[in-house]
């Protein structure tokens, strides 16, 4: 119980830190809209950025709410709400949603699909939230012009969803440290630079609630996150 309380305090601290920067940015840009030194094109650009930044904050606050709800009730899980889901369809939807933000940073988003991917057991809305959250995290850390690739592959009992970006990776030691606790607690200032690791924490919480797991990888260049989801055992009805 004490552990849960500590975890909740850490979540609040991480959430406050994570929301501070985008709020400050919105404030700066809103002030820019009445700045006589800026021209109309610059102001239009600010309006678009304000919209994208506030959407990002809303996504984050919605996910914090979902995660807190899971935390508040001991042993609550989403296992009763799972259904066979085509993960590629959810990836496409998430990608479509995140494309405007990626474009603003000249980044490319790509889904590498297997034509006949196994279905997973998941809650569609929660899986969508997880993928959006991970893409958002990648966009934040990817360099301008960088690439983000979502792919899936079949493992024995699970389907693995991989997300690879070209952002700054972590040292082996840092990665090992983060891998121990990924999704289990926010990582104040110790995960990827400038973030509290809240995104990964929330994605982890939601994944665990569906009986899956989350992990990190270190590709040659960049950063990788994978989510293992339970494979649906039902006969596939769609070829």
């Amino acid at each position, binding site marked *: 119980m004490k552990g849960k309380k500590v975890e909740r305090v850490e979540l609040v601290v991480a959430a406050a830190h994570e929301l*501070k920067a985008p709020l400050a940015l919105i404030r700066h840009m809103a002030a820019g809209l009445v700045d006589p030194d800026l021209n109309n094109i610059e102001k239009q650009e600010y309006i678009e950025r304000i919209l994208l930044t506030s959407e990002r904050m809303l996504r984050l606050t919605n996910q914090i709410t979902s995660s807190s709800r899971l935390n508040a009730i001991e042993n609550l899980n989403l296992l009763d709400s799972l259904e066979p889901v085509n993960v590629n369809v959810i990836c496409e939807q998430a990608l479509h949603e995140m494309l405007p933000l990626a474009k603003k940073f000249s980044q490319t988003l790509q889904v590498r699909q297997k034509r006949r991917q196994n279905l997973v057991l998941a809650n569609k809305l929660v899986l969508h939230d997880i993928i959006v959250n991970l893409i958002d995290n990648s966009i934040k850390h990817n360099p301008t012009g960088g690439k983000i690739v979502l792919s899936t592959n079949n493992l024995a009992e699970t389907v693995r969803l991989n997300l690879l970006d070209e952002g700054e990776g972590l040292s082996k030691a840092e990665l090992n440290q983060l891998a121990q606790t990924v999704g289990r607690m926010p990582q104040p200032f110790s995960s990827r630079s400038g973030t509290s690791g809240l995104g990964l924490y929330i994605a982890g919480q939601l994944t665990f609630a569906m009986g899956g797991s989350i992990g990190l990888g270190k590709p040659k260049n960049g950063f990788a996150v994978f989510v293992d989801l339970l494979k649906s055992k039902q006969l596939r009805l769609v070829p």
Partner: protein
Amino acid sequence: MNVLIIDDDRWFFDCYSNWLKAKKYIVEYASNAQAALDYLDSKKVDLIILDIFLPSSNGIQFLNTISSYGDLGKIPTLVLSAVDFRENDFGHKNVVAVLNKTLITKQTLLEVVGNALS
């Protein structure tokens, strides 16, 4: 006057840059400590505006690095962070001010930059 802004968030840079350009400062951008060092190697900079949480090397490591070089260590540096640091949190003589990113306004930044360069 040349100002180098080091911040991994390009949109913050754009805001500060627009504020400073209105007062005819020449503003350059580095998204991380290494890019900043490369820039400092090749160009003269009169003031650095530094975010603390950067990818790879953080802002404090960057301050330690430039302090170890006689010439770079003298460049006045303004620290900007969303975390509430105080000036005496930094043992670097070149840190002229510490500003909170969440509270700063155009007027404050221009005043502090003006004072640092006067």
